[in-house]
């Protein structure tokens, strides 16, 4: 499979791999390792603003790259009840094949599972 330059870059050197702990950290995960894809986000939020983000992914290069990119781009931004960029936009940005769209939806599920409860957290 061929990957675009952005995918390759974020797959080879993904930022924000790992986990967070401490006050204001919310964790969301989706997928199953046994099914070949699992993604977890840890989002640290204060007054609705993302302070730090980490991810783990047992997944394909597209999933790793998108997850890393999301964590990198979102820090300092206000969390909302949607992904920072839509699934379609992510698909275009990372040139994700149409038959892997389901993987982007798993990323979305994991992200929102952490982000939605974090929005109202005030510490």
């Amino acid at each position: 499979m061929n990957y675009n330059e952005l995918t390759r870059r974020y797959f080879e050197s993904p930022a924000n791999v790992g986990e967070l702990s401490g006050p204001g950290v919310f964790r969301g995960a989706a997928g199953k390792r046994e099914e070949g894809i699992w993604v977890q986000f840890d989002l640290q939020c204060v007054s609705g603003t993302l302070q730090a983000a980490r991810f783990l992914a047992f997944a394909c290069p597209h999933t790793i790259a998108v997850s890393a990119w999301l964590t990198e781009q979102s820090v300092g931004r206000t969390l909302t009840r949607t992904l920072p960029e839509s699934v379609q936009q992510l698909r275009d940005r990372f040139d994700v094949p149409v038959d892997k769209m389901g993987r982007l939806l798993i990323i979305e599920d994991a992200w929102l599972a952490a982000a939605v409860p974090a929005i109202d957290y005030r510490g």
Partner: protein
Amino acid sequence: MNTAVQMGAAGMPVYLDHASTTPVDPRVALAMAEVLNSETEFGNPASASHDYGGVAHALVERARCQVAAAVGAAPAEVVWTSGATEANNLSLFGVAQYYRERGRHIVTSRTEHKAVLDPCRELERRGWQVTYLVPDREGLLDPEQVAAALRQDTVLVSVMHVNNEIGVVQNIGALGAICARHGGAWLHVDAAQSLGKCPIDFAGLGVDLMSLSGHKVYGPKGVGALLVAQRKDGLRSARLQLAPLLYGGGQERGLRAGTLATHQVVGMGLAFELASSISSTETVRIAQLQRRLWQGLAAIGGVLRNGSVSHSVPHLLNVSFEGVEGESLLAAIRPQLAVSTGSACNSALAEPSYVLRALGRSERLSESSLRFGLGRTTTQSDIDAAIAVLSREVPRLRHIAGAQSATAPGVPAT
């Protein structure tokens, strides 16, 4: 990504996929080029009416003798094909069609090459019954499994010699004896991976049909052969007959119509002659390299070897990496290593290796498997490069995948 690993030829990745195909031996390429450039060797080998045809015919027959000599067959038993896939198809459809009134049952195994399994599926669609034997966890068939599967209406048993994914060598001699005792079941063996890796004795094994490939043994692609036994012994009431796949010229004793590609045939003949003269020191060298590779990979931890260790050729090593996703593993190593993976990673619907699944490996471990194919051009530095790349990338991907942790959505992680 660290790129301080030795690369292969011309900046290409290190080639460790010799089970897929091999580079053409320069001597073979030269012999083929001589035929192509010759003003006297371009004739149609079937043109008996003039010397141009005669010269080409002589080249084809010399190559036929070379192939036969390399595998313990008689020259008259060699039928040229476009490759092992065609040879497999000719065996399965040829026997099925010719003996359709005698019986419509075939025995094969779940770890055969697709070039056997797909024709079997097609025959099932056409009304034949196929028994797919399941090998043990090491990939080995018990000959008694074959004996137990034989029925009165069984016309063919098809079992490969050296498995193309895991390198396991089946006990073909025992199967030959079982089929001979049965009397009605012919034995076909896909031996595309065998020559140069382990000895082949077509006559001695009691095999009736054997598929061979040119490009697996440093010959050209696009040419192969089917050995069709001509013997008639006390256990066989008649010589084996086949219905051809192709009609239109009667070449190859009516079994394979079409003008022979003299240069391809010459290339395969020489490649087989060269392969049969491989010294035991080369086999020892390959075995040492394989051992070095396995020890290096095992040191990473969480690496499982697939297939029998004691009943396999040293040219293949198949391993699964725990805790690593298959597509990411291949993507991570692809810039530096040319190997085969256990999954078809060209879509989200990647299919894990059916061979490894048949051995009982999980879907995940089947997908995170790599097949290393060692060959004549493989050096110790190639092996060390492979170890270095995987020693770096497997832990990196495991780090990204994290440790197994139970998580409830949206719960504070503190």
